[in-house]
């Protein structure tokens, strides 16, 4: 990571690398700060550290410095509850914590004490450790720590084209795999990162309209919130060059809405996860991906395969292992290097469509219901600003399909309820929502919609 910083710092040290609410930092400044961090970490003799810090400038310097010093870094949610942090830090064996907070357990290290020291131009003597831990979002329980190799992550950046005039919005948390991917792409392309904090969709909207942004990478849920916010405020959007979607399946309705708002933007849907890394990117603006990419007799080198309705991948820049939890095997590779993804897919014609996570499937009296197609039907109803479809436990049928809806302003709930019922009337009866509630905001974890079955 420090090599990426140093590369641009060598030719354009005054180019702005990151913009936050606290100010700007150039590539030259960040590279120097990263070298200071490396020197300080080496001097302290650390091998593993936790980072709990929201400011993108500091986090980039800390990660780059740690990588250079051969120190395994692991970021936690910056505003994580102290008790919850204590549980997670203990599980991951973290005793040293780089943070400006004072309410966390462990040996607390002020990040600014690391970035302001004397820089070093070399890394850890004989540093063999090139790893970092990335916590999963924990959407199905406690976050797991996925151990990644910097060299594998950086290896995927060799073909990134320089775009020094571009400004990328950081819409993910920097502690997430997707957020780190955005940062690495920005550094590899010599671009500028615009990183407001908090990173809610309304903050992203402000950054797009006020701070100047050319490209945005975010989840479909984030985009739905952002567009709803923009509609509600009557915002005028500047043109974007690039929109990247990831983390969840993107519906056709969302893709069309993005095309309407940003007609000049290239829309890319990437398929990646903390565990399997980046797998593919789709640029044709349609939901799902081309079935020709699947492994077949005609394409034996294919890295994607469908087994029992689940997508499997192989040979990607995936994690090395789950840290300290070797028995957690759901994403372990088989003998041929194939890993299950937990994503359920269906081939329709020449296209592979995502139907949701296996953990999201709703068993309604023995009928397996995928929430995403139902959600897409409801999302298309006029007057629906946001929708979440999930399973609700029920003694009579095991579960029923439930929907939470955020209605647009001025909509009459009873009329909208009737319109939603009409919109799903031709679905199989078990697929039709039996619980429909109007809410102020739908539930999310990070910037993903929660769809698992709830009691």
């Amino acid at each position, binding site marked *: 990571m420090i090599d990426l910083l140093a590369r641009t710092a060598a030719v354009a040290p005054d180019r702005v690398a990151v913009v936050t609410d606290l100010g700007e930092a150039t590539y030259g400044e960040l590279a120097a700060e990263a070298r200071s961090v490396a020197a300080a970490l080496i001097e302290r003799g650390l091998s593993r550290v936790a980072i709990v810090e929201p400011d993108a400038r500091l986090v980039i310097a800390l990660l780059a410095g740690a990588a250079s010093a051969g120190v395994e870094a692991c970021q936690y949610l910056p505003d994580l509850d102290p008790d919850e942090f204590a549980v997670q830090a203990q599980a991951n064996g973290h005793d040293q914590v780089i943070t400006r907070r004072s309410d966390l357990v462990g040996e607390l290290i002020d990040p600014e004490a690391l970035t302001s020291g004397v820089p070093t131009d070399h890394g850890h003597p004989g540093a063999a450790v090139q790893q970092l831990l990335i916590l999963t979002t924990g959407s199905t329980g406690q976050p797991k720590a996925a151990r990644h190799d910097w060299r594998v992550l950086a290896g995927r950046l060799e073909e990134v084209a320089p775009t020094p005039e571009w400004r990328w919005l950081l819409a993910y948390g920097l502690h997430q795999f997707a957020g780190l991917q955005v940062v690495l792409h920005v550094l590899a392309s010599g671009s500028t990162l615009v990183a407001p904090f908090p990173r809610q969709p309304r903050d992203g909207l402000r950054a797009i309209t006020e701070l100047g942004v050319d490209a945005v990478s975010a989840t479909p849920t984030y985009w739905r919130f952002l567009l709803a916010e923009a509609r509600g405020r009557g915002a005028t959007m500047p043109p974007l060059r690039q929109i990247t979607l990831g983390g969840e399946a993107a519906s056709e309705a969302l893709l069309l809405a993005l095309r309407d708002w940003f007609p000049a933007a290239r829309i890319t849907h990437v398929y990646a996860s903390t565990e399997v890394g980046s797998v593919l990117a789709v640029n044709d603006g349609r939901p799902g991906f081309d079935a020709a990419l699947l492994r077949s007799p005609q394409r034996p080198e294919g890295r994607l395969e469908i087994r029992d309705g689940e997508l499997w991948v192989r040979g990607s820049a995936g994690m090395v292992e789950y840290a300290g939890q070797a028995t957690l095997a759901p994403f372990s590779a088989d003998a041929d290097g194939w890993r299950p993804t937990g994503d359920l897919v269906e081939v329709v014609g020449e296209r592979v469509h995502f139907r949701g996570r296996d953990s999201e499937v709703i068993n309604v*009296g023995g009928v397996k219901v995928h929430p995403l197609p139902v959600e897409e039907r409801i999302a298309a109803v006029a007057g629906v600003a946001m929708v979440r479809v999930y399973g*609700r436990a029920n003694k*009579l*049928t095991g579960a*029923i399909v439930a929907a939470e809806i955020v209605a647009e302003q001025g909509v009459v709930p009873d009329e909208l309820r009737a319109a939603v019922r009409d919109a799903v009337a031709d679905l199989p009866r078990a697929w039709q929502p039996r*619980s429909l509630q109007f809410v102020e905001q739908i539930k999310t974890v990070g910037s993903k919609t929660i769809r698992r079955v709830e009691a």
Partner: protein
Amino acid sequence: MTTTPESILALIGEFLTRASKSRDDLSAQTSLWADGLELDSLEAAELSAMLEDAYGTDPFSVGATMPETVADVLAFYEGARTA
């Protein structure tokens, strides 16, 4: 929400309207199943969810035996109210 017989009957009536079922002869004696409202499992699950949303509990999920009639539903809440 108050668990009066009137409010419960109104909620069942609302459910029947949503389910496009007749509510003309709805009374305490009406059977929930055959020869009455003719609920199937999905409709009963929907009614149980509506009752739970409104009153925090419902006789389909909590009761030891399934309610047979509208009167059984009313009695469940009457029992909860006086317990």
